[in-house]
């Protein structure tokens, strides 16, 4: 189920290769992840759960949920959504914890001395926030290293085929996919971007543990900017672990990055901007969208996004939710139900829809492990997405020299993520190289732009969250 023609994207596939999964030959293309290639071959079950042995497929496709773990070339617990398929690879579906078997882990890591690399600014995550931080810090002379766990640079932007909102200053009307490229093109020789390089630990004082070329490496930095983005929320309903229940980000990754159809017909849960935009992208890719469900009494997405979906004839059902998914080993349908004003199911309104995929778009939560390791003061602020590090206007956390930016600091937009990254980069370079009029002017401009972005009715939640954050700072 590969996409050949797409109104926005061109898929340039690599060389055709073959690997083996549970004894069966699988055709893949170079540059495709194992999970994507298996999906294209119709294999949705990747593992079985530890206790009940229930079938599991992937869910997040960005290395965060662990539901795609398989044994690869004898190594168990490999997140197949993050690892590229290779010629003659041996992949086995895994039940439970997996066994280490023949692998000699010591050979890879322990015998050699752990390499140490020094840099002025270490940036974690190459999404719009991390890249903007690098762009502005390097412009004023700081040496930056950006660590990105994915094989591609751009974070969420690499999946966004639609034109972005905002003004010219935030690349409005440019498609998300092209904004990432613009940011990368703007980087100068002071910046080194390392892909496939996850940051797995933080040690005082500003030392990062990264896995570089399959080896543990220590990065010693003077400033650290953490822009790790967010992960998708789950929704509880019976059978929500069936293969075929995917996060909206995973659906986008499969369809817009790998060029693989996530399913034939889809039920979307959540009518915020992301749910509605992804539903539209599904139509563009040729998937049938049965409906978009929203438990709230009103649609959260911008009216223009909702309207463009509605005129295609796709219903958006407010005050509706999913009661259960059903299917034998994979999603075959869902029971949906209407809710009353007290959030109670209205008896007799249940009905079944036949779909092979259920897409969840019920919010994101900031990825904050590194802040916790660094000992940053945290606060729970629901308006900003849940638990986040406390930080000032300059984006510095409670730990001196450790910054946060983008969705990791509050679930918002790429436009604000870029501005926050820019602010963190500017403040870090100012502290390294000294105050200059130019940097101060830039910082003021960024602050004004953020205020302007958040000034409208859709910025109200963020403004409330920011106010709570200010309280927490005291």
């Amino acid at each position, binding site marked *: 189920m590969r996409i050949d*023609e*797409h*109104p*926005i994207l061109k898929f340039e596939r690599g060389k055709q290769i073959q690997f083996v999964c549970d004894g069966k030959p699988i055709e893949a293309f170079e540059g495709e992840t194992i999970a994507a290639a298996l999906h294209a071959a119709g294999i949705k079950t990747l593992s079985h759960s530890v206790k009940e042995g229930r079938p599991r497929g992937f869910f997040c496709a960005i290395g965060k949920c662990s539901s795609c773990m398989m044994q690869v070339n004898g190594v168990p617990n490999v997140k197949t959504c993050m690892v590229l398929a290779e010629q003659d690879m041996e992949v086995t579906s895994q039940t439970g914890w997996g066994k280490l078997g023949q692998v000699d882990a010591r050979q890879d890591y322990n015998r050699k001395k752990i390499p140490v690399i020094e840099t002025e600014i270490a940036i974690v995550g190459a999404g719009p926030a991390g890249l903007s931080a690098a762009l502005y810090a390097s412009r004023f002379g700081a040496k930056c290293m950006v660590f990105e766990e994915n094989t591609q640079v751009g974070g969420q932007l690499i999946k966004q085929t*639609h*034109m*972005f*909102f*905002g*003004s*010219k200053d935030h690349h*409005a*009307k440019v*498609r998300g996919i092209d904004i990432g490229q613009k940011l990368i093109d703007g980087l100068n020789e002071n910046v080194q971007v390392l892909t496939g390089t996850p940051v797995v630990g933080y040690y005082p004082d500003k030392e990062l543990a990264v896995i570089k070329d399959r080896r543990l490496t220590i990065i010693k930095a003077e400033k650290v900017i953490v822009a790790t983005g967010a992960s998708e929320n789950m929704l509880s309903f019976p059978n929500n672990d069936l293969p075929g229940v995917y996060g909206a980000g995973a659906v986008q990754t499969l369809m817009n990055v790998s060029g693989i159809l996530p399913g034939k017909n889809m039920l979307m849960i959540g*009518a915020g901007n992301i749910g509605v935009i992804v539903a539209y992208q599904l*139509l*563009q890719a040729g998937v049938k969208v049965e409906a978009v469900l929203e438990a709230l*009494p*009103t*649609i959260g997405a*911008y*009216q*223009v*996004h*909702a*309207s*463009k*979906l*509605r*005129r*295609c*004839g*796709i219903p*958006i059902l*407010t005050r509706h939710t999913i009661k259960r998914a059903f299917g034998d080993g994979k999603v075959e349908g869902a029971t949906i139900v209407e809710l009353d004003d007290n959030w109670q199911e209205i008896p007799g309104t249940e009905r079944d829809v036949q779909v092979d995929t259920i897409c969840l778009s019920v919010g994101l939560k900031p990825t904050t492990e590194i802040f916790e390791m660094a000992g940053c003061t945290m606060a729970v602020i629901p308006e900003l997405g849940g638990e986040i590090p406390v930080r000032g206007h300059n984006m510095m956390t409670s730990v001196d020299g450790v910054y946060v930016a983008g969705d990791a600091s509050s679930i918002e937009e790429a*436009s604000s993520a870029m501005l926050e990254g820019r602010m963190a980069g500017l403040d870090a370079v100012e502290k390294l190289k000294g105050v200059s009029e130019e940097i101060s002017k830039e910082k003021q401009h960024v602050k004004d732009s953020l205020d*302007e*972005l*958040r*000034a*409208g*009715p*859709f*910025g109200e939640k963020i403004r409330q969250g920011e106010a709570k954050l200010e309280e927490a700072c005291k």
Partner: protein
Amino acid sequence: MSDYLKNGYLTLEDISPPDMERLEKGPVAVIECVQEIPCNPCSDSCHRGAITMKTSINDRPDIDYKLCNGCGICVANCPGLAIFLIDQSYSETEALVGLPYEFLPLPEAGEKVMLLSRQGEVCGEGVVQKVRNTRAMDRTPIVFISMRKDLAMTVRFFRR
């Protein structure tokens, strides 16, 4: 105001379309974007200054139908795909409506299509007259469809 927050689509009462006199003069843009969202490429892209925002990018776009000549530049620049072109002067009996269309395959001139309303209901039949798809439009082509004059303010999409 209609119930767009509940069902997702606007109705005529949400928008203030040009008057009949202006409509009969020739092509004009109709903007169907009613919320205060942080967005302004429409006003940024119009060379004639026909679309303005009062003070900030969170304001609703305001269009001066006297300044608009229906060139269509704003249509492909709007991330919300919320701008449409209406030409009531097209012929004695028919109007020409330009719709942004980001789907494949693109229709061809002469093709008959089913016309869809704002809520996606079939409301008639039209004929594709031309498809404008330049590089500058960056993958948002405009499909121009002729239809009965009275349908021009109802039709916002089509099915092949």
